[in-house]
């Protein structure tokens, strides 16, 4: 009898404990579910963000400028399309009323022979403003790569009226302001040999010196002390994943937290603006890193 009383007391205790634990377990399941839903929601939101443009405005001042000039910078499109035939991108650029459009490389994919996305885009942009183009690694691979499509992109761009720069500079007048526009395609190891002379003569020129290159790393390896007014670049895709503190996480060339990942940087003589780019290449999605269209307003200081 005493044994039976003990057992029933234990049962009661167990039941009370079970009742006490039940809400806690339910809460845990609910929390896990909420976390999963939240994670999925964030992932979908972040990925869907990859098709919506973000326009970033930068202000640069210079004594060489008489009348304000607006430059639109496009980089790393990688054959991506915003709307049918890039209608959204073209409309956005048109609404910005640029005076000069520059493309800092990787607008195509090295292994994709389809260049019509870019040539058609250039055709439309040329109706708004002159277009200057400097090659990135993907254009090089597309034109020359062994076993690649070997498509003469530059010939097609020239036909359209785009000015392609290959380690050389040209003089141009933008809204009455004298501009010296230089494009650098050389990599760091061959920079001196390939572009050294051209950079030296570029530095000596008087107009507003705009330096285009695809690779931001050139600015800390070779171009840090070069005398230019404004330099632009792309390539790092903003570090592909943008951390909450704004830092870019990774690029295959530079590893974690690449330098000059995106944004505005003051160098010895001039200002460098690095774009996060408009598209992506490969399977890694851009996370918290919307495609960026850069607008640089240069006004008189």
């Amino acid at each position, binding site marked *: 009898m005493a044994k039976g009383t003990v057992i029933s007391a234990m049962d009661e205790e167990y039941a009370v404990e079970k009742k006490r634990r039940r809400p806690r377990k339910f809460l845990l399941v609910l929390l896990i579910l909420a976390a999963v839903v939240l994670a999925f929601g964030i992932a979908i939101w972040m990925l869907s963000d990859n098709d919506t443009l973000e326009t970033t405005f930068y202000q640069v001042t210079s004594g060489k400028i008489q009348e304000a000039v607006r430059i639109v910078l496009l980089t790393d499109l990688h054959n991506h399309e915003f709307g049918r035939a890039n209608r959204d991108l073209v409309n956005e650029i048109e609404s910005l009323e640029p005076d000069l459009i520059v493309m800092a490389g990787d607008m195509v994919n090295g292994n994709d022979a389809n260049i019509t996305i870019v040539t058609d885009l250039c055709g439309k942009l040329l109706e708004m403003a002159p277009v200057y183009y400097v090659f990135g690694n993907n254009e*090089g691979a597309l034109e*020359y790569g*062994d076993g690649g499509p070997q498509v003469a992109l530059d010939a097609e761009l*020239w036909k359209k009226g785009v*000015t392609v*720069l*290959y380690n*050389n500079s*040209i003089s141009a007048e933008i809204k009455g302001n004298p501009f010296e526009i230089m494009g650098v395609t050389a990599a760091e190891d061959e920079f001196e040999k*390939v572009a050294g002379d051209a950079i030296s003569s570029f530095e000596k020129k008087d107009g507003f010196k705009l330096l285009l290159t695809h690779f931001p790393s050139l600015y800390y390896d070779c171009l840090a002390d070069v005398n230019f007014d404004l330099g632009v670049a792309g390539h790092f895709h903003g570090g592909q994943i943008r951390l909450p503190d704004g830092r870019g996480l990774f690029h295959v060339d530079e590893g974690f937290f690449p330098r000059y990942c995106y944004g505005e940087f003051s160098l010895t003589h001039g200002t460098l603006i690095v774009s996060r780019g408009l598209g992506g290449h490969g399977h890694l999605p851009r996370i918290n890193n919307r495609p960026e269209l850069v607008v640089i307003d240069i006004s008189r200081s």
Partner: protein
Amino acid sequence: MENIRYFEYILVALPAVMLLCALILFMSRGKENLLRRIRNGTRTLKRWIILVLILAVAYGGINFKTEQMQAEMRAAAIIGFNYPEASSGLNPNRTRFNISEILSDEILEKAITEGNLDHVSADDLKRCLQVTPLKAGESISTNQVYISTEYQLTYEADQNTKHLDPDDVVTSVAEVYCREFVDANSRKTNAFAMDFSELENMDYLDIVELFDEKAEDISDYAYAMSFEAATFQSETTGETFSSITEKVQTFRDVQLERFQAFILSNGLAKNASQYVAKLKYDNTITHKLYLKNVATHNINLDAIDRYDRDMATIVLIPSVDVDGYFYMSRTKIGVDYFAENAEESMQSASKRQRSMQFNDYAITQMQTADQVSAQIAQAEDMLEALKNEYQVFSQLLVDTLADYDKKTVNNYVSMMVDDSDPLKTEIVKSAIFAIIFAVALCVLIIALNGRNDPVSSSVSGGSQKEKRNAGPGDVQRETGNGDGETAEEDKR
């Protein structure tokens, strides 16, 4: 249209119903006295024969009119395909042939527009059109399915399309289809045309390259055509495909070479500094690739050296070639692949080296040249001559191809509207139906008259009229006589 069809059904069914009724009447009285009943009925028929003939002629007339009205709402065309692949069920370009494309919305809508077929939609036409294969001439073997190369397109108007002329409908649809078929299977020669406005933004050496690529395309095409149509000479241009190939080759080897030599020797460029930069960029990358090729070549040579001799022992395998002949095949071994790779990379390296040497020469010339305006003007004149020459031979090829296609592609498909007068057929058909009707009517009359007692009428020897006039006593008498005669006949 529907009413006429129903009426025609009734007309056709009428003799059948009459025959059926006659059969039922015969059957209902059993087999006894059948012959006598028929004999009696035939005698009665003789009196009705004139009426039967009149009814048969009337029936035939109505049938003829119905047929004619039906024929007026119908039309047909025969479409034949006369290219070798047709009998395999393929289009000339060896894609799958599908005759039902003739009833596609695209074709029907074009037919409606071009044939001015008012107040009708593609769906309306689709309901009235039918396409069926015609099997003619060829035999079908047990293991080979016969694929027709001739199809009949038939049109039969309905309530929505009765306002249209059937011949117009069939002709429009068949003509549009044939034209679209020829268009789809014709050559697209617009690739040979060149937009000369594009050259304005290009530098001279790039223009040479562009002209060379385009001329090579034309030359290759004409050369391939010279095999397909070796003896063909265009009546329009007087050219053969071989003569066009020669003309293009001369353009490339003489005029284009001369222009390039002039540009290079004088170091001419529309924008020398820009073009030099481009050539230098070209050389930078080409040099890297050249070094890569040389390294690949050396690695492969090294691999060949290291290859174990014992592994390279040749093994011969008995094999059979495509013609079924026996031969000894030597197996490929690793060293063969190394040798192939080494050779390929060396060829590629040599090609790149030549390209770099050419660029270097052009760079030197352009950097030292003064860009004399007289020379620029001469280059522009030469360029104009190149444009004219290119236009001439590209047009020659286009015209010659068009001429050739006229003789081949246009014959791929033929169309013939069936405009034969159906009057004879209709008359014959109506006459046959009238005969069937007359026969059916005769049978029915025989069957109907067989219902009276045949014996009484035969014994009395009087007519039906007399029998009807006879009183009840007469009938009894006649019955008695009849019985006796029946018994006698039965005995016999």
